[in-house]
């Protein structure tokens, strides 16, 4: 699950990273810093996994006022 600051939300961490990257000579545009949360789920049902992960994002992992999320599934 990828958690990102929503567009328009001030992201001072992103700004600091952006400025450091430019300092190193990388021609980057805006940088934003979010979070990655990996969890293991014991299921083969992709739909069920997706529902559970969405609930995790909505109940705990994000604050919907300031953050958005994206989910990636990976079979192990």
């Amino acid at each position: 699950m990828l958690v990102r600051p929503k567009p328009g939300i001030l992201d001072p961490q992103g700004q600091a990273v952006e400025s450091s990257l430019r300092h190193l000579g990388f021609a980057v545009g805006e940088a934003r810093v979010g979070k990655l949360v990996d969890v293991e789920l014991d299921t083969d049902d992709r739909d069920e996994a997706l529902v559970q992960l969405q609930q995790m994002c909505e109940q705990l992992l994000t604050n919907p006022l300031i953050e958005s999320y994206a989910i990636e599934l990976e079979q192990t």
Partner: protein
Amino acid sequence: MTDAVGPRPVVPVIVFPGSNDDRDAQLALERLGADSPRVWHTDETLPAGTAGVVLPGGFSYGDYLRCGAIARFSPVLNAVADFAAGGGLVLGICNGFQILTEAGLLPGALRPNQTLSFVCRDVALTVERTDTPFTSRCEPGADLTVPVKHGDGCWFADDELVAQLEANGQLVLRYAAGANPNGAVADVAGVLNDEGNVFGLMPHPEHAVDPLLGSTDGALILGSLVDAARLSLVLAV
């Protein structure tokens, strides 16, 4: 600090793993005339006769994920939410404010300070309203000096929400012009809920209750809460 006359209202201070201002809050409230037992976060009920609740500052659950995001799921928070829903007075200080926003009991969210630095110093505050249970001891338009100490105190709400809160008179406490230490939207230092019984602020009134601490202005806020809690007891009789 003024010890008021009348019954001592029960105003417990909730303690989460990582709270560190609970004893200061307890001491300040007790000197202001309340009985303030410290209540552990796993308790499912508030002490009998609770007339107000304080969520203290600190770093509950290590500030992991987002400040206050994990503490909001503590068993005691259900009791606090029920108490608030019934009109009970709830005050969140710093981490307590963060917990109340995460729990949806107060509007907005607290983000990392704009400077990315931890700020720890006295700030000047302007009281916008004195007709609330948390500011009744303040003079209208009063300037207070109260310390802040936080890394995530940048209160955020979008323009629409700010306009709505402003219109409702919920932006009760602001950093004075030029004194905003964290980049908070609209210089907001403290917010009241719509019903007027839940208040959160980033500055620490419990650290400004004795001349030895450099200011006694924090006692105006905590004293207001104790007054309102005592009044609720009298009215309940």
